[in-house]
């Protein structure tokens, strides 16, 4: 039997504990820098990306983690501003969210909530652009044009565009029938009475139960006689 003794006798390398200590110190330093950044520049300072921008071009297998980090940074950035009187500063947020969904296209949270954060920061055009980016990644997801439509409706008051986007969402797989109610509602709000009546009639004819009753009520409001 070959016998090979471990080299080095009792001498032991100490690099592993040192590595652990250095890692812990680096994490502490990173946390402090984040804190100092907020204290020095204030919670309303823009969210600035530096080295992160290069991540898109250098995949190392850590894309999901990097996307999570960006999402958490956005949440801390926005959360730090809540409860203050000043308006929400979302400068840099769209860039961070664009990067996050590029790194991890399946990450739902930034898409679902991020667009609303951007829109709340008085940048509905940026929110729509961000959702358009997400739609290029997920062309079959009906929720994306649905969110776009709501932003057109609530922030930009462009009812015709909102109706078009709701209509697109309604035509996509998985969309519930009630989305068509939003289309008709947008035409009503946009004072496009003929289109509104046409859409409510379509809903009335195609459905039974509560949706049909809602369509009938709206048609009566628009002056159309609907049999009971």
């Amino acid at each position, binding site marked *: *039997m*070959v016998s090979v003794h471990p*080299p080095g006798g009792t001498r032991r390398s100490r690099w592993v504990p040192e590595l652990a200590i250095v890692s812990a110190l680096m994490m502490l330093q990173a946390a402090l820098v984040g804190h100092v950044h907020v204290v020095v520049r204030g919670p309303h300072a823009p969210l600035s990306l530096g080295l992160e921008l290069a991540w898109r071009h250098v995949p190392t*297998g850590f894309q999901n983690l990097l996307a999570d980090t960006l999402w958490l940074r956005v949440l801390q950035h926005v959360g730090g501003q809540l409860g203050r009187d000043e308006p929400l500063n979302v400068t840099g947020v769209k860039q961070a969210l664009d990067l996050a969904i590029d790194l991890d296209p399946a990450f739902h949270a930034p898409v679902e909530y991020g667009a609303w954060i951007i829109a709340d920061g008085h940048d509905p055009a940026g929110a729509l652009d961000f959702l358009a980016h997400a739609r290029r990644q997920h062309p079959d997801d009906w929720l994306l044009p649905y969110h776009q439509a709501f932003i057109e409706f609530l922030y930009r008051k462009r009812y015709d565009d909102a109706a078009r986007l709701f209509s697109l969402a309604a035509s996509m797989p998985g969309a519930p029938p009630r989305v068509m109610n939003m289309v008709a509602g947008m035409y009503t709000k946009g004072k496009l009475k003929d289109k509104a009546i046409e859409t409510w009639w379509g809903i009335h004819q195609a459905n039974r139960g509560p949706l049909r009753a809602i369509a009938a009520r709206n048609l009566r409001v628009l002056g159309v006689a609907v049999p009971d």
Partner: protein
Amino acid sequence: MRAVVAVAINTWREVVRDRVLLLLLVFAGVVVGSSGLMATLTFSEERKIVLDVALASMEGLGVLLALFVGGQLLVKEIDRRTLYVVLSKPVSRLSLVWGKFLGLVMVQSFLVAAMTGVLGGVMVFTGGVRFSVLGVSCMLVLQLVLLAALSVLGSAFTSPLVTSALTAILYVVGHNLETLRMLARKMVPVARLSVEALCRVLPDLSVFEVKNAWVNGVPLAVDGMVVAGGYAMAYAAMCVCLAGWLLERREW
């Protein structure tokens, strides 16, 4: 073969004596800590973020191990002159290299298995265990096997620092071969051919990258895992044999 096993077991002891298993504590701290933190830092997809942090930590710690321990394995023997003692016994230089490599692979496999156990424990409390995490761990081990082989190859002809740097560069480049190929298409023909040839020689580590998709619910492809396994074994064997050949030619 007995010589290889003996060297491998001693390498295991040597690496464990370096308190490498403390990395397990670091990992457990990161995973358990992050699972608690995520509940306060985010309001959705906590489980996804915990899994991302855990799997990235597993890979990060495994890569660190391959870079720093793998790069030192042979050099330490040479520096401490213990190599002479080993080679005075019926142990060929090739057996020594294979033993060192297998010892490192044993440590890496043990660490990944233990970290997977910790992750499984955390998954129980964050929405249930997905047993396919074992497949992700296997792919990670394969990637680490390849990196260990590259480290051992580097340590056969250069210093630990250079070996670690080279392995780290190969790790990044290995995940970016597709980008490199894309750039090559925009180059002049000679440069394009050179880069394309380089891409065929360099290790393609992107084939082991399944964790990001798995976290997002994409099932693992068994045939892809088998091919990746064969690729890792063949590439690692080639590197270790090359390291043995370099060591055979070396004189002290």
